[in-house]
């Protein structure tokens, strides 16, 4: 046995800290929670309210815009059809709504953070180790702070998903901006471009393929969090898998699992398509 005398417990202080956060700043979390919930419900309402063929059309249009390839459009159509035929349409739309919100917020956090990292050596030195830790932590761990602050439900599920999924976007935004040819930035500077003009007119456009790769990874990680997030109240495909496991209904679990895989493939192909497009647009330079 490890000697009692060396025993340190961080359990008490952490619980106290969270408790005091909730007591003193509860209204802040409530406000965040409310807004986020409204947003999630709104997106869900749209996706579930739209007729299936409208969603189909949007996906096919996106697939076409991303690749200009008939093959991808057909693949996406077949895959979505399978989802519908398996009776998973509504669940898939619920999951998709959570994905969309989580991805949007990830972009809103990840891209500015990435820019900041690229511009400030200090910020980079502080943040990169934190990101390393975040990426090696098991995804379950993120449920804990989310539940502590927001209880059970869709909001903590989305927040846990974001925390788990945002690191690659931050990293690749940082990398993309750092990789921009110094001479091009120098030329823009020499012609009087301001830092903002250079950021939006030169650095971000040139970093877009890399940022898209980051977004793709973020979406994939968010999808891999679906089942875990359903443990604290995310509805949709993840919940169905969890249900299948809990009731030993293997078929049900697999069906829903298939739905997640299909969603992953479709989103992956489409975002990758957009990434390659932005790369192609400016040739090999």
């Amino acid at each position, binding site marked *: 046995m490890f000697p009692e005398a060396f025993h340190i417990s961080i359990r008490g202080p952490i619980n106290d800290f969270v408790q005091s956060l909730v007591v003193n700043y509860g209204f802040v979390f409530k406000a965040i929670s409310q807004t986020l919930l409204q947003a999630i419900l709104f997106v869900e309402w749209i996706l579930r309210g739209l007729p299936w063929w409208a969603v189909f059309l949007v996906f096919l249009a996106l697939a076409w815009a991303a690749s200009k390839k008939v093959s991808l459009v057909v693949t996406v159509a077949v895959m979505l059809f399978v989802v519908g035929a398996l009776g998973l349409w509504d669940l898939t739309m619920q999951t998709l709504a959570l994905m969309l919100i989580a991805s949007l917020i990830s972009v809103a956090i990840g891209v500015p953070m990435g820019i900041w990292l690229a511009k400030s050596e200090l910020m980079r030195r502080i943040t990169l180790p934190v990101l390393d830790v975040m990426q090696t932590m098991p995804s379950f761990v993120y449920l804990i702070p989310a539940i502590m602050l927001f209880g059970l439900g869709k909001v903590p599920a989305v927040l846990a998903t974001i925390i788990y999924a945002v690191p690659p976007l931050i990293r690749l935004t940082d990398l993309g901006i750092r990789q921009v*040819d110094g*001479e*091009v930035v*120098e*030329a*823009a*500077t*020499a*012609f*009087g*471009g*301001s830092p903002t*003009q250079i950021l939006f007119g*030169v650095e971000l*456009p*040139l970093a877009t393929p890399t940022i898209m790769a980051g977004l793709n990874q973020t979406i994939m990680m968010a999808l891999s969090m679906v089942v875990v997030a359903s443990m604290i109240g995310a509805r949709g495909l993840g919940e169905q898998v969890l249900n299948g496991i809990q009731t030993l209904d293997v078929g049900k679990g697999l069906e829903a699992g298939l739905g997640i895989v299909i969603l992953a493939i479709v989103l992956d192909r489409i975002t990758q398509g957009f990434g390659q497009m932005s790369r192609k*647009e*400016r*040739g*090999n*330079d």
Partner: protein
Amino acid sequence: MTDIKIRNVSKIFGGSWKAALAMTQQGADKGEILARTGCSVGLDNVSLDIPGGRIFVIMGLSGSGKSTLVRHINRLIEPTSGEILVDGSNVLDLKPKDLRDFRNRRVSMVFQNFGLMPHRTVLQNVVYGQRVRGLTKVDAKPIGMKWIETVGLAGYENKFPHQLSGGMKQRVGLARALAADTDVILMDEAFSALDPLIRADMQDQLLQLEKNLHKTIVFITHDLDEALRIGAQIAILKDGKLVQVGTPNEILNSPANDYVARFVQRRAGAGEPHHA
């Protein structure tokens, strides 16, 4: 007409620049300083008067500090010591906003490696300076087209840089600098990738600009014939030090030392200097 005065400018690249600067003052040479401190000497106490409204040529071997010197004029590089006066006012005193204005309206530059924006078309690249200045797309377009035609790229305005050859890219860089319509144009080996015909044509264009619009043009080249043809004055650098400044005739007829003599010896009197 804008004149440029460079006053005792030194530039040391590297962390222990203080030690290196002290060594330059004691007359240590570039190689010795690199070995002892790990710093490379870009410029070593260079003073130069560049008169307004003329073409001023800078020559020197590779690594002698030519690019470093012109980058001081629009302050893409901050000197380790010394000052740069453009029209009498010190460039180093400019606040960020004024510095941007200065770069946008008073000096433009052609880069040795072109520095084109790969995600913008030829036209968008050429009008960059004008767009930064706040001109709308519509207003900037005729200016851009005019200069694209001047450098012989009409028809390519909607192509992207990666679709052009090296010489064509260089001409886009040239058009971009000219379209900015500034008093001072810095040209870092601006013609190096051009074929002899276009090159001669561009040299004529430059002489026209000097004659009609009285632009101050600082022109880096490795080509002595070119230097003699267009330069009102020629400065020669070696290892970051200024070796000689003078008119083409002075440089040809009374080289300051062996280095300059070697530079000019292989041409004995062929061609006529433009500025006799």
